[in-house]
């Protein structure tokens, strides 16, 4: 199941397509829509993953056609417990690392830093509507 927040750029579309293959993973691009900004609660079904552009990187449809450009993005893994978030992180990393995706008809290899485990921590800002905590971790990915 995919929840699209806004129109997908080619990189995000390719990553979402790849993530949808193995399971019914909840995938969000950008911010999660099922969120109450005032109460700082997220009601989206758990677990979910969230895709964002890498720090300082601005996705562009033109990047898909440029050889040698590394496309950077992050994937956040969110669960209701630390174990749940960690399980999603482990599964997604394993599924995404070294995967090949097509971005604007150009094949790119996905890489994630495998030298460290994803750090899972309790969210300091957001909770569930019932007051329960959210646990999350974020990894940097690159499509080369």
């Amino acid at each position: 199941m995919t929840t699209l927040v806004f129109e997908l750029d080619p990189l995000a579309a390719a990553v979402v397509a790849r993530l949808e293959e193995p399971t019914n993973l909840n995938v969000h691009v950008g911010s999660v829509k099922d969120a109450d900004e005032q109460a700082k609660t997220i009601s989206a079904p758990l677990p979910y993953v969230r895709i964002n552009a890498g720090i300082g990187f601005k996705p562009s449809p033109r990047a898909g056609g440029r050889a040698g450009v590394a496309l950077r993005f992050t994937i956040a893994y969110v669960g209701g417990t630390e174990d749940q978030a960690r399980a999603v992180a482990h599964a997604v990393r394993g599924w995404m690392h070294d995967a090949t995706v097509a971005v604007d008809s150009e094949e790119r290899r996905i890489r994630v830093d495998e030298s460290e485990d994803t750090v899972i921590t309790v969210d300091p800002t957001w909770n569930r509507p019932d007051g329960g905590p959210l646990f999350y971790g974020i990894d940097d990915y690159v499509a080369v």
Partner: protein
Amino acid sequence: MSIDTSEVDRLIVDLYDAPDRIQKSARRTMKRSALEIKKKMRKEFSGHSYAPKVPLSLEFEQLDGRGLAYEIGELDSGGPQWGIAAILAYGTSNNAPVVDHRKALRQEAPVMFHHLGIDAESSVFGGAR
């Protein structure tokens, strides 16, 4: 037949004395690098209107008695914007990270290693070649 081992003997003495000499100059290098990383991190964390005091909350602290280990970041939990730097660097369940908190270390690491290499060479040979 005799074998002149005087140069080998001198080298053994040099290496034996080197650890203290290396540590003295390495301490200066590490402190200088910690300061540079702090300054670069402050620059990276600047420019966020909702977190104006975060750059000033970043400091560095010596961790060991020898001055060879430092911690750099948001060290004062009593600061007015405690925890905001972590959110900027790591994001949340609904916010992506916006600051690359490791960039400063990546930029300074080659400089630090270069100077540590000079420190090591100077401690053995008595001066940079």
